[in-house]
Every structure is written in structure tokens, then in C-alpha cells.
């Protein structure tokens, strides 16, 4: 998974799936590219207009609470977000990230230290987050079966592979 470096979009605690991907779009938006266009629409119009591929989202505790809607992960992944770093994730969002093959990291200390707008580097091989100021935070490696999911690009490619399809 190597290393990614990008600009940080930082948010607080309990960011829910309705503000990441509004419920009113759940049956009117079908294409992933269109999901990306409304990402975080009810949370941060600056992100919605200006987030670029490779950028990084940093959230507080319980990122992604609320609905099970997977579009709240798809819209962020399709937007090209490289990784979400948070103090904790709501469980369905967490599973949806693994299933969509979107990298996520739980690292409360890094979240406290990282400032909005700074460039942050994440080294997945070493399990390190490096900030602009030179702070380094360690995060534990994924369990093997989770690593397999993310490396295969998510659950659907993973299932295809395991079924030999």
C-alpha cells in the first residue's frame, strides 16, 4: 500500500453519514462519479468544491455514525481521498470502508496533532503518520484478513477472487 501524501481536511466528533452523503440522494444518484460530486455537501462546501485526489480526511471520534449507506464511503473514495484518519469509526462505516477498499486509520494522538490544511504523509508499510512539523505517529498494521480485503480493492473483488470468478 506504500506511502501517500496529501492535504488534510479536518473535522470534529460524530460526523454522520447524512452530512457525508445526504439521504435524499440515496435512490436518485446511482453512478459513483455522481456520488463524488455531493460528497460532504451538508458538512463542508469548501471540501465539496475543492477536495482533490490524494487529499486526506481527519476526523474525531465516531466518524461515519448513523445510516448503513455505503455511498457515504463510495463518495469519499471516488473523490480520490487517500485515507481517513480518525479517533474512532462507527462500526458499519468501518466495515464499509474495508468492503470498499478505502484505507482507514485509528490514531487519536495523530488526530489531536494534525492541523487542517497541512500536508501529511502516511506510510502504510511502516505504519507511520508523519506531519509537516515532523511529528511521527505509529499505527498498528491491519489484521491479515483486513489487509487482504483492502489489497484486493474491497469485498466484491475479494469474493470474486476467493470463488475463482
Amino acid at each position, binding site marked *: 500500500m506504500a506511502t501517500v501524501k496529501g492535504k488534510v481536511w479536518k473535522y470534529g*466528533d460524530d460526523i454522520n453519514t447524512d*452530512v457525508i452523503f445526504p439521504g435524499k440522494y440515496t*435512490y*436518485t444518484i446511482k453512478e459513483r462519479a455522481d456520488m463524488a460530486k455531493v460528497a460532504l455537501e451538508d458538512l463542508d462546501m469548501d471540501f465539496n468544491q475543492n477536495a482533490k485526489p490524494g487529499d486526506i480526511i481527519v476526523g474525531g471520534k465516531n466518524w461515519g*455514525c448513523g445510516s448503513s449507506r455505503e455511498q457515504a464511503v463510495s463518495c469519499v473514495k471516488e473523490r480520490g481521498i487517500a485515507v481517513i484518519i480518525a479517533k474512532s469509526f462507527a462500526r458499519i462505516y468501518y466495515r*464499509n470502508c474495508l468492503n470498499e477498499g478505502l484505507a482507514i486509520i485509528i490514531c487519536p494522538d495523530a488526530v489531536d496533532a494534525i492541523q487542517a490544511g497541512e500536508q501529511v504523509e502516511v506510510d502504510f508499510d511502516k505504519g507511520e503518520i508523519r506531519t509537516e512539523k515532523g511529528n511521527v505517529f505509529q499505527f498498528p498494521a491491519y489484521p491479515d*484478513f483486513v489487509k487482504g480485503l483492502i489489497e484486493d480493492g474491497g*469485498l466484491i473483488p475479494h469474493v470474486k477472487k476467493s470463488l475463482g470468478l
Partner: protein
Amino acid sequence: MGKTFAEKALGRAAGQDVVANQVVTVEPDWCMSHDNAAPIARTFKKIGVKNVWKPERIVFILDHAIPAPSSDHAVNHKEVREFSAEQGIKNFYDVMSDGGVCHQKMCEEGYALPGLIMVGSDSHTCTYGAYGAFSTGIGRSEMAAAWATGSIWFKVPESMKVVVTGKFKPGVTAKDFILKFIGDVKADGADYMSVEFHGEGIENMSIAERMTLCNMGIEFGAKNAVCKPDQKVLDAIKDNAKCDRWEPLWADDDAVYAAEYHYDLGDIVPGVAKPHKVDNYATVAEVKGTPIHEAFLGSCTNGRIEDLREAASLLKGKKIAIRTVVIPASWKVYRQAMKEGLIDIFLDSGCVICNPGCGPCMGNHEGILAPGEAAISTANRNFKGRMGDKESFIYLASPLTVAASALKGEITDPREVL
């Protein structure tokens, strides 16, 4: 060392002795999907498996936007019909008078049963814990994979024990208790955990009240929420259990918990969740007089006959001051409300009644708010934009508080109207 409910239920399904934090793979007893069965079907087709593993274990219930409010929604429903016909999925509740909100249907049709492993592509799938099931919400990819493989992995969760004693005072309900509880433990209070409701306070509750508690489990992060399957549950499922795979399971007295809370229902007062978070608790006394533009009585949280009876008891013979949308949780509930004269009470008081379904709860139709407007709702979420506009405001409350507030056009303590 004793076992928790989650350890017993997942252990039974996995066919082995399990403990918290172990990862197990199990076969789901039921896989429930609503309108999102259509996008899940599209994902399923990408896998390349021709047939679902067991069509008889899959349930489709259209409820999120019914009848279709737009062509996009109609196309979505059409895809669900075509896929269910193609795959032989007979447990399909279409836009017809045997339908309703998916979680209500799963319970009243006898799918929700003690000890079963139930997954649904909806976060409020945790509702079935009221019948003693291990039930939890999953995403679309995961449901598509479950249809293809008949298996799903779970980390056996650690458990939280909530011990409830005492009785509610008049004007106070299960919704007031769960809003207060969420306000105390916060939106992540039970993240990843299995939540068990124990005690005489729960035993005295109806199944409808237990459904309200378990339904809101996800609002404080629970993986699943569950009550003991007692005689009330066994009586309820006696004639309509949809399968015989069930078995009453409950935690041992010496089970180990990651957290434990104690509540006396006699201490609970009418409460609300203020905008824009479910854990933003206040007593009704603290927000009394707040102007409200719309009242909503319905949803998988509080659209049952017991909820309609409570609201009607306050509305009888009186006129509402603001637009009030009443949506029974299923047509079965609707018919019962008609028989009891509740529909006449709502109409006489000025309420409008919509067809059973999710209605305005997640911003699709039937009661969307204008910018600057505030609603008081019996549903489960008050997130920004949830009822359609990000400049609107939602207060969550009990059916009694919603009815009392509808009469005055401002947040009102139901005990003043009783």
C-alpha cells in the same frame, strides 16, 4: 465464566464455543433489504454468481420511498421486482397493503425470532433484538457478498449491560428513557458493542417499547441491542414464526461486561434530542415553548399501534396548531388504528395520514421541511439535512410529546395536556 448473549448467539451460529473479540464466520438466518435491494442486486451481478445462496432466507420490503415519488425511485422499485422474480425471492413485500416499514414487517410477520442471526442493509436492523435475535446492519457490498456466499464474518463483540428497574410515571415512555440514555452515554457510547437490556423495568415493557429501545441502539453505536426473549415474546411468535431455527438465548448471570449502567424508570422525565445530534439531550422542561412548524408521528421507532394510541389519547377532541403527518408503521397497524377509531381522532384533530412507509424520516417525501423550519418527530435521527433541508431543525421525542407539541405549535410537556 459465564457467557454474554452475543457469545451465545454467535457461538451457536458458528457451531463452536466463542469468546469476545474472536472472529467468526456464520450463515445468516435472514438477510433483509428494502429499496436498496436494487443497487445490491447490481453489485451481486458483478460478482458473477448466478443464483443467491438461499432465496428463502432473503426478504425484500419496499419502504423508503413508496409509492415511488419520482421516476428514479420507480426504476429502483422495478429493479427489485425483476430481481426477486428472477431469483425466486418470495419473501417480497411490494407497494401493497401487506407492506409497511421494513423493521415493523420483520417483527410482525414472524421473521424476528429468538437466537437467530439477522442482517439487514439498514442500520436500524438492530430493532429485532426486541425478540431476542442477534440482528445488525450491514452495507450494500456486504449484503451482495452474503447473498452470493451465504456467509458473513463478525468479530464477537464485547457487551454492555443496561439494568433497568422501576416504572415510568404518567406521560413518560420508552422513547424518553432511550433519549436520556443516549444523552448520557453519547453517540459512540457502545461503539462495536452488543447491548443487553436487563431488569424488571424491561420485563414490564411491551414488545413495542422494547423495539423502540433496540431500534435506537445504533444511535449510540451498538452492533446489536437485545432484550430477554420472555413469555411475552414466546406468546407473540407462537402462531407466526417464519422458521423453526430459533432458540431462546440469554446471557448468564456471571457473564463479563465491558460496561454496565443502572437506571430507575421512575427517574425519567419527558425528553428530546435537540438538533443536530441524537445525543444532544434536554428535558422537555428545558426546551418548552420552542416554536415548531411540523409534527411527525411514525417511523420504525414509534409508528406502532401503541404509539398511535398514546398520541390519539392527547389529540382526541382537540385541534392541532401545526401541520401534523401521521404514518402508521404498517398497513396492519393502519387497519388496527381504523378499527379502534384512532384514524378518525387524527383526522378530526386536523392531522394528515400518509401510507405506511418511512415517509419524511430520511428526507425522501411526505413532509420535507423548508429552510428555517423546525419539526418535532418520533423518528430516530435529527442529523442536519435528515428531513431534506440542511437549514432545518429536528427535535426527536416520544409520541406523547409530539402530540402535545402539535396541539400548541411549540414544544410542550405532555403531562400538561394529559
